[in-house]
């Protein structure tokens, strides 16, 4: 089994529902994002590239952990905290082993790993989101788990929870009948920074 995700950037409108669904269901600490949405265009959110005279271009790119088959983060991790779960293809971090050295953050070309320097802080004094949301621990690195907790009990990742634009797809890339496999089969797709050899499991259309 190899879980993977497909994002149709033609459909994506940069609405950030996936970003906040992820934040809410995973009970992410303040100022923590596992799933960001990049503006592809100008230098700031919602700004296009080009000019009115020559033509303008604006689109969006949701980016979270790519759950690579050749994860550089795992390769450089000195403690084995970052690991590839061979059963599911997920790249995960064991926070009990992580020493917060941040080596993985430098190695990850997708800039999706986040560091809890201190005890995580929350806006409310009780946990939000899923009852089994992951723990967030001081002096550890964390990131998208492909919502392992949700998926293992039969749900879909939180960012897949009704993408308003219907731009996100999820499933087992090893299963040719899965939604993601059928979707990328024969389609023009690309993966982010594919030339680096990380073999990501997130595909973009």
């Amino acid at each position: 089994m190899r879980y993977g995700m497909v994002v149709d950037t033609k459909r994506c409108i940069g609405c950030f529902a996936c970003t906040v669904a992820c934040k809410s269901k995973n009970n992410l600490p303040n100022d923590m994002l596992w799933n960001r949405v990049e503006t592809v265009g100008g230098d700031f959110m919602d700004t296009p590239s080009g000019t009115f005279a020559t033509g303008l271009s604006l689109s969006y790119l949701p980016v979270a952990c790519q759950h690579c088959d050749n994860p550089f983060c795992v390769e450089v991790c000195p403690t084995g905290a970052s690991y590839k779960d061979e059963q599911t293809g997920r790249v995960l971090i064991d926070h009990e082993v992580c020493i917060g050295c941040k080596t993985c953050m430098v190695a990850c070309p997708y800039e999706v790993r986040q560091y809890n320097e201190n005890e995580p802080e929350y806006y409310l004094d009780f946990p939000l989101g899923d009852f089994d949301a992951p723990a967030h621990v001081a002096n550890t690195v964390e990131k998208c788990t492909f919502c392992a907790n949700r998926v293992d009990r039969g749900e879909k990742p939180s960012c897949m929870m009704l993408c308003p634009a219907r731009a996100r797809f999820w499933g087992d890339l090893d299963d040719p009948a899965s939604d993601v496999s059928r979707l990328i089969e024969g389609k023009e797709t690309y993966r982010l920074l594919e030339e680096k050899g990380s073999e990501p499991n997130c595909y973009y259309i």
Partner: protein
Amino acid sequence: MLEKKTQSQNGLSRRSFLKAVAATGAAGALAGAVGCTPDEKEGTPSGETAQAGPGPGEQVFQGVCRGNCSSSCVMNVVVRDGKIVKTEPLEMDNPDDSRMCVRGHTHPQRVYAPNRLKHPLRRVEGTPRGAGEWEQLSWDEAISYIAEKWKGFREEFGDSSIAYHYGSGNLAFDPKFTLRLFRAMHSTNIVQTVDYAYCYYMGPKVLGYGPWFFGNDPKTMTSAKNVFVWGMNPSHSWATSWPYVQNAIDAGAKFVVIDPQFTVMAGKADQYVQIRPGTDAALAMAMFNILLDEGFNDDDYLRKGTVAPFLVKDEDGRYLRMSDLGVEPTEGPVDPRTGQPTVVDPFVMRAEDGTLGTIEEIAEPVIRGTFEIEGHTVTTAFDLLVERCSEWTPEKASGVTQVPVDTIYDLARTFADGPTTVMLNMGIDHLSNGGAAYHAMFCLSFVTGQVGFPGAGWTGASFNMSSGVVNSYATYPEGGTPGPEVFNQYLPMVMETGMFNGNPLPIKSLYCIILNPLVTSTGRTEQLEAFDKIEFIVVADVILSETAKYADVVLPVPHYFEKWDLSYNVTPVVAVSEKAIEPLYDCKTDHEITCLLAEAMGVADTVNMTWDEYMDHCLDADGARAFGVNSWEDMKEMKIFYSARDGWCHGQDYTFMTPTGRAQFYLEDAKPLNDYGQVASGEFDPRKEALPYWDPPVEAWHENPLHGQYPLQIMTWRSRFKVHSQFTHIPWLLELWPEPYLYMNAEDAAARGISTGDTIKAFNDRGHMVCKAVCSAGIAPGTVLQDHGWEIDQYIDGSLSDLIGNNSHPATNHMAWYDSLCQVEKA
């Protein structure tokens, strides 16, 4: 800054990541296997809501998020250990209708927001309004204090001295109960004129309401050959409607976007047409002329579906009726509203051979020509339309709209090669001249006969209010004659003069319900001056909003999910919003507050009902019974049902809910929505308003002398992170968009030495706003753009609303957020 917030922590900037990605083709397609193309529909798992049962110790309730965003998403509200911990979208019968946007995920932060009101509060005597000095009151104290004030005002100044101001922050029945109280007291209604040019003037007058408001079920767009998104940005203002457009594109529709700004939609369009703001009527009339010149007119449709064959009398602009031919009017059925019989005086049609008769008698009436009939000179309504539009040659329109002549031809020909759906919403409404623009735009569909079938017509905002499912008289108590009605932009005038339309109107108290007008209405500076002249202001709200801060008494109301209610604008469904938790703190529902106030004011007999009685009364409607709902108990059990007809096309079968039963491009007896004296003064001209026309916007126009001093037009967009001022303090959303930015055209900014991130001051004679700038290539030159809804404490200084004037229109009387000018300099 936005950049910092989305930047990773490893020292590489976001830009370097994107540049690296761009090099390998993220912005374009990278080579991949190309072979057979599977049906995209096969794999749309993100269209599912993926609901599982509740987790351990969790309870799930149905809730409706119901601010005024045109969506009202139905969701599962999950409660754990007595607290609302998450929301998830509810799976609808038709998965295309399932929806929840970014904001919907943040409700736990709204419920437990630090700025929630906890108790009734009274401004400490002797402290100025807005100083933040409050004393806590018990409910008994608050109610008797308000009642004592109101009784005094009513005794001394009359019923209309009490005014109420009702908004759109909770589109459901609990706040509506308050209307019973103010109607029973004959109080003055200060109407917040949000979207009035479209929703309450041109839409109903020309198209009439329907089950999908003024349009088709958006799912029918998949039948369109062309989709024109015109003056609307569904990606921000109505994200949940985007899949309908995308589905149409997937089905092969050409996607055309007409907008002054380069929006996300423009980035996805097959054709993006930039138009000068406030000139849509000129473009539409030029397109109309091309359609007619090139023979794309569908006379059969015009004859059967529109007022084209109606004969307009030259002397008074009214239709020729059988009484003009000496046929006595007859009595029709009793009008339930007036209790009086209706008068039947049929319209006169003329056949080609000159035979006159009623619609039923003349099978093929003429739609062109001027005739002398029984001493009246009459012209067909269609000829009047043609004449009215005729001055708008493509060349003339191009000069006004800045759309190239060739593009105007191209747009018209594309439109004719239909079916073409026009998707529109409120962007055009937000200029003073917006009403007439809708009027002209609707005519493109009429003249080409693209009405009433899938893929044609219009789609846009959809509300269920007109579907007959609820009893619209439930909020009218017996004997409750409504008091005067004053649109909010005229409140400053009333407070200045004590008069409205020639009559004394001494307003002494204002009660605000489900709105935050100091942020969301135009004319903040004038409004504040008016507030200063109102002796006693009461605000009922969930949070201490900017307006609540200026009140004398504040009453705490629970969040949506802390009370039972029925949401009425969730098209295509009617849905119960369940009470997931008890009201927090010392909050009372609007229903409870109203009952207490009605008791104290001595009008409980006519106003008060128990909640269950009231809801039974609201559902006492044939529309509800048709779905098997005979009571509130039935509704609570059913929870949700589809009420709007799937696949409905507005105007199908040539029927419209208008006085003529037709599409009314000619408005007989045009009247303003709110008469402040413009009818008597002649400022309002009913003959002019009968047909489309183009006048420049009141203020935001390059030929306005003020433009020399203030050369930048302020426009606003409806952010994906807010519904007006709702959600504006939600921490998760502030992490993504932490403060107001003024988006400027890159060249306009450069000419002022302004770079992205600079602190700027925007100003005009009304006020100023200090915030940071973002320079963008996608902002139309000569305009500046900001998302509307930030409260004043979120700015460095001043606020956007301080710059926006009360510019409006004598017919549509709506707020025009985009019709003010300013100058910008580096602060």
